[in-house]
């Protein structure tokens, strides 16, 4: 599949369009339904984080590129906000009971868990997060 790209303001209100775009690309690629939902969650978490954190109080853009790479479906999300490497965060504590439990760090954790392969690059002032899903469910969420 040739690359397709979408660019929009990094605002929560654009989430539907972003997920709609990713979903139609994933359908084209032929990603299986259950793998697709996992990917959509990863993309949501990444996009929402760019909306919340990348640009502080300012406005900025997010760019999404979908492509097929052999047997893999690839989504890249890029922003021009502060440098942040998703891979640098520790896993959250997922064992505390209801009252003590805080939700923090689950977003990034889901991004890591829902993808088969994840890489981060800071390049020309941009954060580029590359999420890869293999068409065949071999190494998923393990």
């Amino acid at each position, binding site marked *: 599949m040739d690359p397709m790209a979408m660019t929009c303001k990094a605002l929560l209100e654009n989430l539907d369009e972003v997920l709609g775009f990713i979903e139609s690309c994933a359908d084209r690629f032929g990603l299986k339904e259950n793998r697709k939902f996992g990917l959509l*969650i990863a993309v949501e978490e990444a996009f*929402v984080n760019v909306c919340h954190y990348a640009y502080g109080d300012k406005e900025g853009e997010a760019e999404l590129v979908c492509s097929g790479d052999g047997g893999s479906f690839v989504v890249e999300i890029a922003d021009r906000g502060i440098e942040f490497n998703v891979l640098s965060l520790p896993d959250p504590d*997922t064992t505390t009971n*209801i009252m003590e439990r805080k*939700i923090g760090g*689950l977003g990034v954790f889901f991004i890591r868990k829902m993808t088969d392969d994840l890489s981060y690059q800071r390049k020309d002032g941009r954060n580029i997060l590359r999420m890869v899903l293999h068409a065949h469910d071999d190494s998923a*969420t393990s």
Partner: protein
Amino acid sequence: MEIISRMEKDTAVVTVTGRMDAISAPQYQDKLNEMITAGTIAFVVDFDGLDYISSAGLRGILATAKALKIKGGQVRFANVRGTVKEVFEMSGFGSIFQVHESVAAALAKIG
């Protein structure tokens, strides 16, 4: 996302269908808070028709569960499957919450 609720005696059975994401999750929280304010403290949430839940959805679930605990109430989940189940397991929600095979099984536990 669509939310429908009905009462079984004093327990609210809440059916959530579609996708619970950063945009729609507040709807879940608002709906349950509204019922908690009106006096309901037992809930069975049916996720049979839920395709997808993100961390924003879990945030809403946790917030209402805490509000319920304070009132001595409870929430149980039924039909947690597919990607939603994956998310519950990864996040530990599958262990800290009561999850049942069916709405009937959940209702039976509330008694």
